[in-house]
């Protein structure tokens, strides 16, 4: 594999990991909000 392959692999990995984490936090947040109902404080866009 050329150097470029490692570089692309590394950047892609980073992107996937970060996006994955953001997604996980976001979906858990949505679930928690849903469980709490509309009256609970802390609503976020």
């Amino acid at each position, binding site marked *: 594999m050329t*150097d470029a392959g490692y570089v692309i*692999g590394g*950047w892609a990995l980073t992107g996937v*990991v970060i996006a994955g*984490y953001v997604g996980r*936090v976001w979906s858990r947040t949505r679930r*928690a909000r849903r469980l*709490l109902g509309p009256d609970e404080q802390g609503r976020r866009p």
Partner: protein
Amino acid sequence: MQKFWTRRGTAVLGGLTVVSLAVLVVLGLFVSDPDFQQGDAVRLMYLHVPAAWISYLAYGVTSLASALYLWKRTRAQVWDTLAGASAEIGVLFTGLTLALGSLWGRPVWNVWWAWDARIVSTAVLFFLYLGYLALRKVPAESAVRARRCSIAALVAFVDVPVVHFSVEWWRTLHQKGTVFNRELNPSIQGNLAWALLSGVVAFTFLYLYLLERRYRLALLEEAVEGRELDAAIAERRAEAEAVPGARGVPERVV
């Protein structure tokens, strides 16, 4: 201190994060030149070094927050919540640091791993905080859990310099002129330095953004747990009242 950040603040932070990451991508992958020794592989450094920096920052926040929780004058549940959120991000980025370092090492040194002092210390750090996260998941009353985790965080933190020194002595004693010289990052110059700087800036914003989100999530989940507990107690009460001649129900334990 329920609100860590205002709604506007979060949006601004999110925006800054996206913009600075975009700048990083442009500078790191396109604009900057390849290094004259490492070639294009140096582009991985623009992620690896910031990731390492973020994890140290994250663990520092965890340790500080844990200390603030333990000190009576500043004790508040929020510190423990913050400590946990920051540690999770820290572990994520330590893992990324190791992976990126490995991907960098393959083209540059021709190995996936090296027993270099910094690499080994980082690996130990990874496991140290992975254990802390495992401890956090153990269910308990929040004050109990907070104290236990805060103590664990400080005990781990105290170990970090000892690990660092011991590993460094170990590896410098055994250097014997290997290919892996200690100067992993010889002075970076020109637009490479800008790319690296943009990486550090972008990842710092990213850390703050992730921290805010994760912290908010932790608060929400604590609230959900509290709700479920209340509901369970209300059910017990209803059951007890429905049975004629039932004894009084115990008061809710706070």
